[in-house]
């Protein structure tokens, strides 16, 4: 059974005689005798709270009585203590102002938290995109390089020993295949082999580029589609829970 009474809160709902009368406690857990200790303790706490409040109110009333007794017996309520009315008004206005300040501060905190969350979200998305992009580029490069090697092989001559271009996986960005050749290298070869070399090189490069751009496009498309889906979901979730209170 649920506790028979709401939790304590300063200035919260007051305890009524009816509630005391109707107070009900669950049986203690198995193996223990009597009533649920927590519920009883909580209830007692609430009774105590109520008593404190009553005593305070009584003290305030006693003070008020003293003050009224001390005040001059005659004099209408209008001219007796004009200051009192003003101070009351000041107090009320001050309270209203404080309430307004509280709301403003709450709203500010809320927007700040929202903005910070959005910022973190943005950073996460960017980091994620960066990682994906890295992987995508690497894959495109590897596949294109493989394609290029294959093209070079199928161009007839035995594959050029090591890749003409140093691989730079650590930097992670794809270089083009060996290009441009240095003039020194160009002059080393004679006419016929230059043609063959040149052709092989070109084919290799074309294969590389073609594969690279294929892979790149595919990935780009997939990525953009994923982004669009993301936006759709976002929109949908916003429509489903408009103005969801905190």
């Amino acid at each position, binding site marked *: 059974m649920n506790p028979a009474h709401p939790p304590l809160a300063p200035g919260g709902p007051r305890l009524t005689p009816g509630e005391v009368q109707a107070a009900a406690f669950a049986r203690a857990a198995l193996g223990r005798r009597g009533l649920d200790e927590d519920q009883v303790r909580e209830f007692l706490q609430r009774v105590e709270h109520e008593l404190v409040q009553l005593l305070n109110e009584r003290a305030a009333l006693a003070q008020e009585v003293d003050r009224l007794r001390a005040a001059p017996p005659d004099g209408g309520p209008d001219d007796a203590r004009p200051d009192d009315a003003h101070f009351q008004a000041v107090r009320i206005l001050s309270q209203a102002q404080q309430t307004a*300040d509280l709301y403003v501060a709450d709203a500010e905190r809320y927007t700040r938290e929202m903005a910070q969350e959005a910022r973190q979200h943005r950073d996460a998305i960017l980091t994620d995109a960066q990682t994906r*992009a*890295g992987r995508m*580029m690497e894959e495109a490069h590897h596949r294109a390089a493989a394609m290029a090697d294959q093209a070079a092989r199928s161009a007839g001559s035995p594959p050029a020993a090591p890749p003409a271009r140093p691989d730079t996986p650590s930097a992670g960005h794809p270089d083009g295949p060996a290009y441009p050749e240095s003039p020194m290298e160009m002059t080393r070869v004679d006419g016929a082999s230059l043609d063959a070399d040149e052709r092989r090189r070109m084919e290799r490069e074309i294969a590389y580029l073609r594969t690279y751009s294929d892979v790149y496009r595919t990935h780009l498309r997939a990525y953009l589609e994923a982004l669009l889906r993301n936006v759709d979901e976002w929109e949908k979730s916003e429509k489903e829970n408009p103005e969801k209170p905190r």
Partner: protein
Amino acid sequence: MDAQRLKENFAQVAQHGDAVALFFYSDLFLRNPHLRDMFPIGMSGQRDKLLRALGQIVSNVDDLGELVPFLQGLGRDHRKFGIIAEHYPHVGASLVATLRHYSGASWTPELEADWVAAYDVVSHVMLEAADQDGMAAPAWWSGEVVAVERRRFDIAVLRVRPDQPLPYAPGQSVAVELPQRLRHWRYLSMANAPRPDNTLDFHVRLVDGGAVSPVLVRSVQAGDRLRMGAAVGTLVLDESSHRDVLMVAGSTGLAPLKAILEQLAQRQTPPRTTLFFGARTRDALYDLPHLAELAGGHPWLTVVAAVSDEPGGGGFGMSFGSPFGAPEGYGPPGVPGSPVSFGASSWFGGPPSGASPGRPPGSASGRPPGQAPGQAASGDAASGHAAFGDTFGSAAAPVPSAPPRIEHGTLAEVVGRYGSWHGHDIYVCGPDAMVESTADRLLRDGVPRDRIRLESFAQR
């Protein structure tokens, strides 16, 4: 008038803290309901200001040399709020009522007479300064936003044309109020030296949870109107000096320093100037392309950029820029003979020396479709750059100039690393922590305190 008695009484009253100001304003508004509209809805900031000003006045009540300039400034400052002579007695009455209320039994007729006399002097000095100011300048300037450039999701550059010329010295700032946020005034620095067409540039960074900056950064459009107060601020060029200049700008703290830079450029022989421009991440270096352009056109100027929250070196992600809005012809990556190092070139979106013309066509500069955090803005900023050429009338077409170096570390560290700044005039502006640490560093390096001019702003 017994200054000591006033101080003691105020100290006693001030113990009640915020309640004092709360009582004061409630009393003031009850007696004069028409004054309420001159204040914002939320008053907590206002109450802090009141208590601070009162404290300052009371503590200097016997030091007129200190007090009078403060009051004069206060009087001039209040003109833009629409405060006029007839408001002053109301404030005085509520002030005395408040002091009386919180003094309890220790309130005496003599004390009351002292306070009344003191308030007379205060309001007299304030009003006199306000009146004098009123002969030369309007209480505020209205202006129109003529261009807005969003450089990043949280940074915008605005150009405003005041209806009448607003005089200022480069480095100064004005309080700005938007019709969308009435009674909220925020100080913004002019980011340009005065121009023949009187337009003013402002660099605004969105403060999370702020009242005004989100409107400025995200919703203000060309054609919107705003109000500005008179220019204030002491972060201005020491005209008499011909020493070399060091400038250290954190984020939008760049604005006043850029204005001073433009002023220097107008000199016959500008001093050798080094500008450090720092941010947490590269994409927050929202004005780097312009600075690079400026440095390209002015041999006396060196620009060094610094990022504090990104690792040095060139990881893969760092070495690629955004595929969108790539800065055509701007700092082309991998330009042979480019003087910049790997890390430095990367901001401009180019892979380092390994970049070869044989890169796949889909990745004009080897850029992946995803944007690295540091890179999102190299595109943003670059497209801003293009727009700047139109709306912001930047000089000539962007000249590809050597991109500035990008250093890693806080501005204090980077500036310190660059060696000694003795013999320089130093101007520092940016977030509180950045300004403080930079000034500390310079002072520790033995730079004389009076060579450093600084200004800072709170950053949440």
